[in-house]
């Protein structure tokens, strides 16, 4: 299950980066070595057959570049517009993952995106996996924590 989830999130991220940002090439590795001082963390809650969340850790420079590519405008800081745009991207990636999982009879829904503080305490989950995804506009990290519904 852990591998299936890891692959589903990496595939969905690759697909969204290609379609929305015109960035076809990504690579991924386990996220133990993801280091970033300034980032925007967006959490997407998951309910249903699996319950938990995925936290998307977007470095600020990557966030600004993502919104720049979509809008053609320059952004110098992360404000409500930028946070909302990258939250929607996290929402889209997560939604695509759940669609893929539903083809394997795993039925889940996602909750609206929430911005997280970088130092918020993490909950422990039965299924935990994380990936650092490298793209032409920087790395992003996905931390997936889920429990099977009892």
């Amino acid at each position, binding site marked *: 299950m852990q591998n299936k989830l890891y692959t589903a999130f990496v595939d969905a991220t690759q*697909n*969204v980066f290609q*379609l*929305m940002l*015109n960035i076809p090439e990504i690579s991924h590795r386990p996220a133990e070595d993801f280091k970033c001082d300034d980032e925007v963390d967006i959490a997407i809650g998951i309910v249903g057959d699996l319950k938990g969340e995925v936290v998307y850790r977007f470095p600020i420079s990557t966030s600004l570049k993502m*919104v720049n590519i*979509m*809008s*053609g*405008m320059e952004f110098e800081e992360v*404000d*409500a*517009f*930028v*946070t*909302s*745009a*990258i*939250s*929607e*991207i996290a929402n*889209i990636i997560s939604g695509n993952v759940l669609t893929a999982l539903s083809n394997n009879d795993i039925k889940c829904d996602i909750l609206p995106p929430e911005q997280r503080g970088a130092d918020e305490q993490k909950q422990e989950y039965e299924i935990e996996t994380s990936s650092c995804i490298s793209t032409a506009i920087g790395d992003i990290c996905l931390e997936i924590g889920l429990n099977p519904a009892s």
Partner: protein
Amino acid sequence: MLWKDQYELGVPVIDAQHKELFRRVDSFLQVLRSENSWDEKIPEINETLEFMKNYVVEHFRDEEEYQRSIDYPGYDAHKQLHADMVKYVLEVSRQYEQSNKNEELMQQFGGRLLAWLINHVAAEDQRIADYAKKKGVSGNAK
């Protein structure tokens, strides 16, 4: 310019509406992100928001009609995506009025609208075009 040629679906009537939608959203974002004071931006923001409320509904209706005309198998799911977006636009519009035209609310709306629209056209609508081309009916819009 927000519109990219890669978003073109090859269905003339839908492409024309998408271009108009992108042009309007582009213009909305230019005003939203300009360096003018919020008070100076409000009249144009209000005007664009009103247009969006009407045009989004009109475009979605036309697109759904096209999907029915080609028996698109993902019609129900796609219609639900449209309904969710219309609900969101109307809800934001209501909150905007109630909050006496709060700027942060509109900045959040702009960011989400940008990402939603690009994904919807580049991914979701592309599936309709792929189906239409496969069926050989891509020029058959009403």
